[in-house]
């Protein structure tokens, strides 16, 4: 007669703290995982470790100074963040930005998108246990950072886009540099793709993990590559074009299954589309001024606007209220990573604890933006 040694034993869920110093949380993010054996029963995300009060700080800074705060929201796609705030202020002040400035903005934003997706590609490789990809992606990213340094003077935190245009025109050798950079990037992205995407080990870790259907993704308020991975063709650049995006011909890559692999592959494909946009923008870019004539100190009239734009991580929205003074009355940011993160408990249900990192990584969160 055999007896079950656990008979009568009272088993409880196990609680594991992951983070805030866990390397795969891409910043300081804490998850409390409730486990039943190897399965995740429940996950409680804890945010706020990187809270700097950017929204509140913005109320005490002049419009030009707020741009420096926006640089630090999503700190790997600085140009995109600067742009959305400047767009909000410009809309409030009804400023028309010179065409050349708009083209340069688009080029820089798309390059920044590539740089940001390359970072995601590399760190996602790390999350799934592959160390080599980050070396490849950073090699390519470094080329972009070098160009940014030549254009704006800083590798990150550029403070280059201004309300009404740009701080400066691009340097004289910009075109030659771009002609050199674009083929290198194209090749680099292909290499990155070949290195990881179809590796059996990587596929086994990501294919079919944490699937989310299109309806659910929309219901959870996801945007950006994470939403498009579920097959929803939604991109602010296309549905609500801003700047000069309506003049370019590019596709919106979308996934079919909405699993981790799709969420990984959509950004990779987006980089190629970004290259297409940059190529077209370089060809169409007109000459002319890069800054409108305006008062040096921006003082928008009383009113409120909501502006959205497509960041690498999804749709960023800025709600800006002005009381007519030189400081904004209220700045509210709708950060894409924060909204994508909401779906985490849903994605994690019944996952294995070993996949927790893979699922979190696939959402591509940046904590500077989640916590603000």
């Amino acid at each position, binding site marked *: 007669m055999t007896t079950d040694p656990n008979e009568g034993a009272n088993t409880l869920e196990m609680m594991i703290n992951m983070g805030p110093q866990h390397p795969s949380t891409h910043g300081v993010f804490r998850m409390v995982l409730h486990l039943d054996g190897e399965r995740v029963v429940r996950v409680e995300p804890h945010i706020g470790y990187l809270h700097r009060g950017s929204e509140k700080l913005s109320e005490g*800074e*002049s419009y*030009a*100074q707020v741009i*420096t*705060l926006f640089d630090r929201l999503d700190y790997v796609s600085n140009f995109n963040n600067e742009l959305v705030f400047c767009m909000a202020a410009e809309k409030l002040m009804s400023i028309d930005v010179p065409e*050349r400035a708009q083209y340069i903005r688009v080029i820089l934003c798309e390059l920044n998108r590539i740089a940001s997706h390359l970072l995601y590609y590399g760190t996602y490789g790390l999350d799934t246990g592959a160390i*080599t990809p980050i070396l*490849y992606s950073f*090699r390519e990213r*470094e080329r972009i950072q*070098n160009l940014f*340094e*030549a*254009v*704006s*003077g*800083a590798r990150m*935190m550029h*403070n280059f886009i201004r309300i009404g*245009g*740009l*701080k*400066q*025109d691009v*340097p004289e050798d910009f075109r030659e540099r771009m002609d050199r950079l674009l083929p290198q990037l194209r090749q680099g992205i292909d*290499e990155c793709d*070949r*290195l*990881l*995407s*179809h*590796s*059996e*080990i*990587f*596929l086994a870790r990501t294919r079919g993990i944490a699937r989310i259907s299109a309806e659910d993704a929309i219901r959870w308020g996801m945007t950006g590559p994470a939403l498009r991975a579920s097959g929803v063709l939604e991109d602010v650049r296309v549905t609500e074009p801003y700047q000069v995006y309506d003049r370019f011909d590019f596709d919106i890559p979308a996934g079919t299954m909405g699993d981790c692999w799709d969420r990984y592959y959509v950004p990779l494909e987006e980089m190629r589309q970004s290259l297409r946009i940059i190529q077209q923008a370089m060809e169409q870019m007109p*000459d*002319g*001024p*890069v*800054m*409108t*004539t*305006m*008062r*040096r*100190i921006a003082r928008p009239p009383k009113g409120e606007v909501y502006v959205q734009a497509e960041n690498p991580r999804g749709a960023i929205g800025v709600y800006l209220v002005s009381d007519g003074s030189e400081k904004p009355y209220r700045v509210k940011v709708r950060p894409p990573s924060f909204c994508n993160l909401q779906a985490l408990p849903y994605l994690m249900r019944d996952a294995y604890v070993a996949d927790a990192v893979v699922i979190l990584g696939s959402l591509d969160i940046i904590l500077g933006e989640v916590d603000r």
Partner: protein
Amino acid sequence: MFGNLKGLLMTFKTTLRKPVTAQYPKERLPIEPRRMGFPMLMWDKNVGEPYCTACMVCIRECPTQCMSANMKDNPLQAEGKSARRKIVESFEINIGRCILCGICVDVCNFDAIEMSYETELSTFVRNGRRMDLRELLERGTGWQEQSGWKPKKERQPAKRGPEAEAKVEEPT
């Protein structure tokens, strides 16, 4: 199996390439002309005094409030050597707080402040890193020579760019 091999082939090809890494403290990346390091003050060689008149505009506009300055009557103006009525007496930048945003350079009406190429922050001093007027000017003079800097008046009028296009109004 095939996908793995494809990836391995990629890494194998890369082993034959030249490395792109720079061995940092020994090797440095080339300095871009626009590189923004810590701010420093410019020295007017023609007169022999700083450009800065301690007008406090940059201090008001700095997002981190990391600067402070004092003004005094310019002794050289009394002697008739300089057109500046007021001149900087003391100036301090807390480098530990500076976020290298370049706003101070943008707002200065006297070409007095520029961003250097210097970005290395570490020191043996624990309590912040402050640069006083003497140090700022020393760095500024060195940088002026290194980069061939000229005040805006003496520069070729830029074909495009905000200097040429934007009508600059006095900040209110």
